[in-house]
């Protein structure tokens, strides 16, 4: 029998390529399930999933909830804003409550890097990282990869640019790890102040010229620019960012061939990406959202197959 694929999903750093492929292949099947007259299957009946979001995120949370319901899991969700948590209940308290409630799978979004790992060391539930600070966001990167594969056929030798605020982006990190694992060539591009020190140690190329990056790549994944980066002094102005790094129709037309443009959302239209690119016919950005549900179904399905020691 095939080996259990996942105990937890904390990140894509160091993951075996075969696991990535298993997740992507499984997600392809779930994508078909989503197209059925009744887009729901029963494998997670009797399994309880808790979505614990310490950071506001409507999109990721809805995507996970939908995936869980499509798999017939019992779902509980709770969101906490960062400030109320720091005052009262600690992460450790939350963890102990989860233990007491006998939850099989925990999906956690947290502002602190390493928080999902912290949980795995202290509870028996399987843990899925739905984004931990500026560390990783593995399901986002997997859905990006699913979309990329759908449009390019494979990863070997594929040239992918990750554009924008690399320093603070968990999506960028997970994309780099995942894409490198399956043989893609990855370049990061953005203002020097938002490219973290020694990023080349992750095996990526670096560019600060978006046109040069576009000339080089087959796929560009445009990161969301947190608007507060301007006040923090990383960029002089949004206007300058848009002019220097924004993905515009003119920029894409200039390269004279089609490349795949991804964006994890939510978009700052007119900053990192123009509406006429995001909404163009053939834009894959909404496909990413659909793929998000399929990827999360695949991850939940593969993780829930684990026999818990006290189940």
């Amino acid at each position: 029998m095939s080996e259990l694929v996942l105990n937890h999903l904390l990140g894509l750093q160091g993951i075996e390529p075969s696991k990535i492929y298993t997740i992507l292949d499984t997600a392809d099947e779930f994508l078909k399930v989503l197209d059925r007259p009744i887009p729901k299957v029963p494998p997670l009946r009797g399994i309880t999933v808790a979505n614990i979001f310490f950071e506001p995120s409507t999109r990721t949370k809805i995507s996970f909830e939908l995936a869980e319901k499509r798999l017939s899991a019992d779902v509980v969700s709770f969101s906490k804003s960062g400030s109320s948590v720091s005052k009262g209940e600690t992460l450790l308290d939350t963890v102990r409550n989860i233990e007491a409630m006998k939850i099989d799978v925990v999906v956690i979004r947290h502002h602190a890097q390493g928080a999902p790992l912290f949980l795995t060391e202290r509870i028996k539930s399987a843990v899925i990282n739905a984004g931990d600070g500026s560390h990783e966001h593995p399901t986002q990167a997997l859905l990006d990869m699913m979309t990329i594969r759908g449009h390019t056929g494979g990863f070997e030798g594929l040239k992918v640019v990750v554009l924008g605020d690399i320093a603070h982006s968990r999506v960028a990190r997970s994309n780099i790890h995942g894409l490198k694992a399956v043989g893609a060539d990855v370049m990061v591009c953005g203002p020097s102040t938002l490219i973290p020190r020694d990023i080349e140690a992750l095996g990526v190329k670096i560019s600060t010229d978006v046109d040069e990056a576009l000339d080089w790549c087959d796929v560009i994944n445009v990161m969301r620019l947190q608007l507060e980066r301007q006040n923090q002094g990383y960029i002089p102005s949004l206007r300058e960012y848009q002019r220097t790094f924004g993905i515009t129709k003119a920029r894409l037309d200039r390269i004279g061939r089609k490349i795949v443009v991804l964006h994890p959302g939510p978009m700052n239209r007119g900053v990192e990406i123009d509406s006429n690119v995001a909404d163009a016919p053939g834009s894959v950005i909404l496909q990413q959202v659909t793929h998000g549900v399929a990827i999360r179904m695949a991850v939940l399905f593969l993780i829930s197959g684990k026999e818990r020691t006290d189940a």
Partner: protein
Amino acid sequence: MSHSADNHINPPEGWQGYNCHNLAIRGARLFDPELKLDMVSDIVILEGKISSIGPIPKDFGGDIIEGKELTVCPGLFDMHVHLREPGYEYKETVQSGCLAAVAGGFTGVAPMPNTNPPTDTPATVNFIRQQSAGTPVDVHPIGAITAGRKGDQLSEMAELNKAGVTGYSDDGSPVPTAELMRLALEYTMMSNSVIIEHAEDTSLSGKGVMDEGAVSTALGLPGWPSIAEDIDVYRCIRLAEYTGGRIHIAHLSTKESVQLVREAKARGVNVTAETTPHHLTLDCTILEGYNSNYKVNPPLRTKADIDALIEGLKDETIDAIATDHAPHAHDEKEVEFILAPFGMIGLETALGVVLTKLVKTKKITLSRAVQALSNAPRKILNLPVAKIEVGAIANLTIFNSDEKWTVDGTKMLSKSQNTPFGGWELTGRATGVVNKGIAFVRRD
């Protein structure tokens, strides 16, 4: 049997207490690098002083400690500890900190003033000192540089000096402006005291929680770059050079700072420096599991920095090894990495770590290790040195350089358990200390 009936002698569980009216150590290796003493001999202590080095007299009626396989050296001194009292007694008290010092072989410690209230008045200095009563540990409080450690204006340094303070620091924070540092250096020249700087340009270190580089980039953790230390170190050196004041750099951690200190010493600047056992042995890749016990300020650096620190220790660019013993309660560390407080305990592991990782591996000599852990810091703080010679006050550390033991945070005498060395197999361990007219020796 022991003569230690005195009520004030309170050895911790598992330890034997003696008073030093009449005490001898038989057949130990006596090792005092500064006196070039290295011989196996008996040593007799009468009324707290070394009365003879040589065979114990036939008619000796006092307690005898068997010294076979043991080494006796000048008492170890840790010039950088946080004993948390007053204000944070749930982390550590002066008493528990002194017992941790004993377990680590230290006969003296210099607690930093970041207590509540901070050590910026003679009353607080005297209070802290008194709390060490009944232990064989000299507690020599460091005074705050600025009033209330607020970084605004100088504390009453002359008053503090009258109360015995010979070193000042706002440790935990750097002195915020160059102007204030200049004034502190100038003012302390009157008493020839030393300013101890926690070197950190906070505008660069910001919210950093670990060394900035490939590891912080992969972990997505905010970086505390080495230049934040280097820039403050250079500022301190130039100010000391300009004013003629005495500057000491606490917990030096970067290779560039080692070089800055080396060059300054060559120019004759009044600069000294310490580094810690953890900066000498742990690099930042250990943070990959987000274990908050490895979160410390300044952060663990790279292997290249470790090599430079060892080189600096060897050529005496770095004068002293200090632990920066920083206890935190379990629940304070049992949180998300970015929220955990900085600091790790070190008193009980320092000697073992230095012997195992630096001396046994021949990176530094035993002489250099003993110097850096005992009299080098005393000299920086203008304190009388400990010597193994007839007539000297018996201020001694006894250790077994071959004892193998495993570090276990739960078995420490410190109130806290946040050691980064948990599970390490060490060779070399403190067996006992003699100081202040009493001796505590580990029972087997």
